[in-house]
């Protein structure tokens, strides 16, 4: 039953990101050209609602749907890993026009060359895992 719920949530996410064109290479390019408010509107309104929902979940100490306590982990404190990793991510995001979620969505939509991007992303994650101990965090 839980499995079906995760699939439904994923399906919902896929439809939203496809239909809002957040999964379109063109929208990402346009965002980095500051030519349209569209992507900023999506991220901004997601954040506005997201902040309210997360604060409510934290303050009300509401339990999960399955009765467990909810623990939202804080991100580890650092600067180096976030700025370097983030910049590398941004370079790839603008070139490929897709972040990890949209890669799966575009595969489902039938844009097969995205599988090359996805393969590259898995390789990138693999090489990160190998080099992890040698990189500054």
């Amino acid at each position: 039953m839980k499995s079906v719920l995760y699939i439904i949530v994923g399906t919902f996410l896929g439809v939203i990101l496809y239909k809002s064109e957040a999964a379109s290479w063109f929208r990402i390019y346009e965002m980095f050209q500051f030519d349209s408010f569209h992507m900023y509107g999506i991220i901004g309104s997601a954040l506005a609602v997201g902040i309210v929902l997360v604060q409510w979940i934290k303050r009300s100490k509401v339990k999960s749907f399955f009765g467990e306590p909810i623990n939202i982990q804080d991100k580890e404190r650092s600067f180096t890993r976030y700025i370097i990793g983030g910049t590398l991510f941004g370079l790839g995001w603008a070139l490929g026009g897709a972040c990890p979620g949209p890669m799966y969505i575009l595969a489902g939509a039938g844009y097969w060359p995205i599988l090359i991007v996805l393969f590259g992303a898995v390789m990138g994650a693999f090489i990160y895992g190998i080099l992890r101990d040698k990189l500054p965090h």
Partner: protein
Amino acid sequence: MLYQPWPWYIAGPLIALVMAVLILMGKRFGMSSNLETFCSIGGAGKFTDYFKVDLKSRRWNLLVVLGSVIGGFLGARVLSPNPAVQISEKTVAKLNELGFESSGTAYLPTELFSLEALAHPTVWILLLVAGFLVGFGTRYAGGCTSGHAISGLSNLQRPSLIAVIGFFIGGLIMVHIIFPLIFGS
């Protein structure tokens, strides 16, 4: 309405809702950790302990991935009679100058994402490099657009703000400095 592109003020709040539902299911909204799960499934644990994980604990997120593949299929094949993305005219002009004739008429540029484009080895290299940077960068930064820009910032995390600033530094460098070098001539 459903068949038209969805406006930002519908999409943004719905994305936040997806995040909240996942948190209320005792999980989190983060798509890039699945890349590591694929490494683990592929046997990367043989190379470093980093990839030795309990796959059962990652299963839920793979189901979200499966769902998003289905969602992409539905969005494209059922809910979108017209795939053209109505980007601004300024963007279309800039892309035409770079040689992207498909701007304004397609969902993804056919110059990179069509089977015909794959006849050019350069396209393979660009797609692979793009993916590699996303995969390496997101794991280095510990999250992507969903994990940092949406989840992290919603939880007012300073590390996520630094990561998102990084996303923009990288994106701006790519689009404004590197694109003219790759596509310009």
